[in-house]
């Protein structure tokens, strides 16, 4: 069971992530229970997986969320994988999933997910943050929750507030 942060709280979680997105995996038997598969697997086995209620899909930075457009309403979980924390494509994917595609299920950041990016990840629409196993001790993970609240009133519109600061509050002239 993985420890992760969902909606600002530490929880344990039983979703399994099928990380390999080799072509071969499309033919593999998937583990039983709740599972997050790569986009390639989803696309190859869409009919089979759509019938399985506990399937989530993860996107890589280079993936196009458009490929999930027809499944957005059905999916309860979409994950975005950060192969490196410094690869910022996942932030734009999260933004697109939440705004353009109106995805309202769980949006999870996986891969190299670090405490110092929690605030930005949350503001782009991720509600679940799953750092790599072993990166943080339990105590560090507990302490990391503070980073979610690094900025109280940011300037930009985002997942936290649909409007930028200048529309939200009356600012002093």
């Amino acid at each position, binding site marked *: 069971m993985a420890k992760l942060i969902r909606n600002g709280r530490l929880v344990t979680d039983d979703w399994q992530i099928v990380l390999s997105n080799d072509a071969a995996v499309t033919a593999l038997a998937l583990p039983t229970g709740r599972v997050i598969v790569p986009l390639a697997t989803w696309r190859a086995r869409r009919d089979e997986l759509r019938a399985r209620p506990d399937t989530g899909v993860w996107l890589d*930075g280079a993936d196009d969320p458009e490929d999930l457009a027809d499944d957005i309403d059905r999916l309860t979980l979409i994950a975005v994988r950060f192969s490196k*924390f*410094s*690869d*910022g*494509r996942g*932030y*734009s*994917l999260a*933004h697109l999933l939440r*705004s*353009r595609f109106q995805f309202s299920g769980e949006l999870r950041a996986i891969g190299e997910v*670090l405490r*110092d*990016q929690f*605030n*930005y*990840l949350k*503001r*782009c629409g991720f509600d679940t943050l799953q750092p790599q196993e072993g990166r943080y001790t339990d105590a*560090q993970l507990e302490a990391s929750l503070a*980073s979610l609240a*690094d*900025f*109280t*009133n*940011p*300037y*930009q*519109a*985002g997942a936290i507030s*649909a*409007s*930028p*600061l*200048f*529309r939200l*509050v009356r*600012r*002093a*002239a």
Partner: protein
Amino acid sequence: MYQYDQYDQQIVDERVAQFLDQTRRYLAGELSEDEFRPLRLQNGLYIQRHAPMLRVAIPYGLLSSRQLRKLAYIARTYDRGYGHFTTRQNIQFNWPTLESVPEILAELATVQMHAIQTSGNCIRNITSDPLAGVAGDERVDPRPWCEILRQWSSLHPEFAFLPRKFKIAVNGAASDRALTQAHDIGLDLKHDEAGKVGFRVLVGGGLGRTPVIGKEIAAFVPWQHLLTYCEAILRVYNRFGRRDNLYKARIKILVNAIGIDAFREQVEAEWARLKDGPSTLTAAEVDRVSAHFIEPGYENLPDEDLCLRHHLADDKAFAAWARRNVRAHKRRGYAIVTLSTKRRDAAPGDVTAEQMERIAGWADEFSFGRIRVTHEQNLVLADVRRADLYVLWHQVRAAGLATPNIGLASDLIACPGSDFCNLGNARSIPIANAIQERFDDLDTLHDIGEIEINISGCVNACGHHHVGHIGILGVDKNGEEFYQVTIGGAQGNRTAIGQVIGPSFPADEVVDAVERLVETYLVHRNSGERFIDTVRRIGVGSFRTHAYSGRQAEGKQANG
């Protein structure tokens, strides 16, 4: 100038607290070098040759006297008593310790300053015209728009890990003084036929390893859509800019690879979904920010001051300074004064703590307490009464900031080079000082007239060598410093990338080469023609021939 409200202050204070904790965790071994690097860079902190270097943002080049005094305090307390003003209107401190940086940031926050996003692969400090609000050729004051962009880009959650750095410049005058054609986004403020304010938008310009002039992506974007249009550009770039090769990661490479038309199509498709959405600017917000940039309390002054006329006639040194370092102001009886940091015994852009305090004092006494920083690494007092010029000049001269050379050969731009910078392949400052020494004689300097000499110590081009009338680029060849020379580059409305004249020169020959280029100009110039005009008229040929005449043994030449 803009004054923070509680929200601006809170954001900067929270940023300080965040970095304090990040530094603590780094020093405690909880953050790896790789994890800490982008965090410190996005707070302006480089690990450099001698010590960390801290780059502090001076948004669109505007400072108050109080802020400048704080910079002097920081220079004295945490550094070695000076700071270096950069070509992007920032200031760098070369000698702070890593442990002291959170404290420095806290000091800066007390005067509404920060080092947010002065480095890293994110949206950098917004730069603009140092003469905003005072130049006669201004169409629209760029400063409110710069401030709106500063807020929008600060801690933007989606664009903190772009493929590479991203620079935005804003110009609002007939003459572009913000180098908008050499920025990732260049914004040119203008009016449409109905008199409404908007932006011509250029994209994909930049210097560095692959110099490119920006291309027009939109002829006119109405002001309401400034932020959504920029957001669309950034999102397309963030998703599709190259991440496999650091040297091909700037937006210019993407724009060139797919072509400006295809790039525009993608941006317009993205923009169509954002246009008129919540990030659309409101008149109320623009008015709120603009209210911070109203004219200072100018007096009604006569056009000419009788005493001034006498001083100009009687004091040759003052007259020479007034001719070069004082510019016309849009307001009668006022003048724009440029303080030159360019002397043969100082690095271009370096200003001591004592000088900063003197400048702050002059700003208070003569210029409404405001100072501007230029990308040519000089400082400007923008609102000086002409009647005060003579008194001011005496003080400026005593402080070593009155070299009458603005726009002349010794007013050159130079990055810190390998003396300080880790990226540098070669030294910049000694070459700059040697050129200044060569053209030290004032009569010669004035006879040569307007010429821009720009020096970069490596291909990253912080010294803007590509757009120098003469550009000098330091290169390393088997551990030896060589300098590649270009001519014909230019900033402004006719921005151009200079052309390499031939094989690079060893350090002890590059100043001779520059002198020969100038000699060539003096021989060929028509009356009234500047160096750049002659290069444009006759081409590189004669310059090249003379530059390489009488060179030392061929063995010292390097190829390329």
